[in-house]
């Protein structure tokens, strides 16, 4: 009798679980979305994956560590560690170093551009406009500073260079009082 009841219960629960699995199926992996939201979206590929989303997928499937994103910096590693409940790691130097200072955008020297469209094709966010044998130009409002278009991709020397984004009243930041305190102590 007991065996019968337990078998019945198992059947009922099994059916219930099977039904909910079909009825409330989750499309895709939600953790990938969450990781992707924390990545800086420069799409630079320094992590070894072709863009931020593939890297997010790799982290979610435990293929990659959380310390391979130099543009995100230590703060990015920290927020990924918080999300995933892992210990924060120092940035992997193999992937590059986090750059301090103002953010950079690419700029094309119109005098030397030969119109080869190589940069137009590689730009991950379509921030370069141009056609074959015509001068190309960077739309700096969309440029993420990924540096994928720089030589050796660009066949011309000194044609595409990075320049810092100019500071305005709106982007200017107050200095950190903490650093002020340290300099006084020293």
């Amino acid at each position, binding site marked *: 009798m007991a065996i019968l009841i337990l078998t019945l219960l198992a059947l009922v629960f099994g059916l219930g679980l099977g039904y909910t699995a079909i009825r409330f199926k989750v499309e895709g992996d939600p953790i990938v979305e969450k990781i992707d939201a924390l990545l800086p979206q420069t799409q630079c590929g320094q992590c070894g994956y072709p863009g931020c*989303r593939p890297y997010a997928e790799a982290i979610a499937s435990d293929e990659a560590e959380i310390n391979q994103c130099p543009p995100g910096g230590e703060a990015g590693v920290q927020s990924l560690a918080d999300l995933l409940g892992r210990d924060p790691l120092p940035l992997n130097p193999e992937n590059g170093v986090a750059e301090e200072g103002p953010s950079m955008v690419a700029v094309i020297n119109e005098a030397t551009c030969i119109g080869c469209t190589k940069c137009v094709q590689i730009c991950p966010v379509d921030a370069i406009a141009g056609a074959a044998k015509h001068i190309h130009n960077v739309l700096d409002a969309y440029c993420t500073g990924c540096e994928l278009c720089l030589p050796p991709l660009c066949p011309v020397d000194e044609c595409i260079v990075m320049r810092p984004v100019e500071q305005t*009243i709106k982007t200017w930041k107050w200095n*950190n009082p*903490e650093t002020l305190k340290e300099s006084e102590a020293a």
Partner: protein
Amino acid sequence: MKSLIRFRGGVKLPGFKSLSTKSPIQKTPLPSRLILPLRQHIGESANPVVEIGDYVYKGQIIADSNSFVSAPIHASSSGKIINIGPYTIPHQSGIAETCIVIETDGKDQWHPNIKQCDVPGSLSADQIRKKIKQAGIVGLGGAVFPSSAKLKPTREIDTLIINGVECEPYITCDDALMRTKADEIIHGILLLRRVLNPIECVIAIENNKPEAIKAVRSTLARFKEENIGSVNTIRVVPVPTIFPAGGEKQLIKQICNKEVPQHGLPYEVGVVCLNVGTTAAIYDCIYQGRPLVSRLVTITGEAVNHPANYQVLIGTPVEDVLAAAGGVQASKVDFIMGGPMMGQVLPDTGVPVVKATNCLLVKTPEKSKKQPVQLPCIRCGACANACPMQLLPQQLYWHARGKHFEKLNHYNLTDCIECGCCSVVCPSKIPLVHYFRFAKTEMREHEVKSKFADQSRLRMLARDARLERIKKEQEERKARRKAEREKKKAANQKQKQISESPKASSG
């Protein structure tokens, strides 16, 4: 008559006001060069409407904007435009923004179209609004909000508050204005009343300015006697001397016992608040036809030789103004635009006086530079008692240090008016306001960056979709071509067969 409500928080500060009130208002001499930034107000910056080499008259519009929250810029004196380009502006950062530079010709000649209005009484509310907008008048208390944007409220106004509180130490320009030009202020109020139709008007003056209170009251009495305008609903209210009693939100709380909603504007609770200087500028623009080309500036501080209030043309370099005030005594000093509590340290003295410049404070480093040693927070809560916005500075301090943006939002960092009361009362000498200013700019950058990241993500997805589509189209085309080729081949074969078969039959 309603009694005053005490706003929560605030601190009592030593005034240092008598430094600059001993001597009468003076005029600074015409400088050889005027530097006029295109953004001197909150909102959209104006666009130049003149070119290099143009001759301009005093009061001529040199930069304009179509935006509702914006104000035009006028030439402060006659002369030639010698440059339009980046110059350091009076801002803590020392950043350069586009300015129009005028080389003055010494004639100081008004534009021929500027003349006195003969019939100010017959102007409609809309005409007054338009004139105020064209005159480039902005809030002269320091916040420089375009006044025209305040004068078109979407609901009825109960109270018009004229702010003559001037609660920051050292500053006395509003005090001097009320003592000498009470007539103009009251004429200005009468004009504003025609635009806003408030039930009552209140002139709020801090009770440490008895002479200003007396001057405004006696002028009101004279207006009543001579029947110049109906001044029955205008009253003078002395408010207690507690910093920041002159803050817009604090003043509204004191006078009307109303609180302006978060991120809201005073008109939403039926109040419009304007500075006394702004009110006098409105009189100037309607009665004299003159746009905002000069303002009263308090030049003060222990290091200034002749501290006083000066009528200064907007665009005059700070060094020229200081020279007019007898120069500076010490060699190493800090130049502060505004008061000691909320003012900004100027990057250098080549920057111009702008519409927001109510005070130039020159302090010797002994008093302003040497910061006391900062000790750890002991959680005493003095800052929370002093905060006039009823925030929790010590919570904000922890989260500002850790850059916890969500928490900072939760504790309403954006509501901080940066008055500095918390820093003053802190027994550990923590520069709390500096932390909050720092955290505000960090937070703004974080927001901009995450918005940019979202945009980049969308562009990446769009690009992937496009590449996918192109690939698919190519494959389809290939398949179609292949099919066509095969069809053709088949057709050819068929034809061959047909053409061969008659041959065969004939053969």
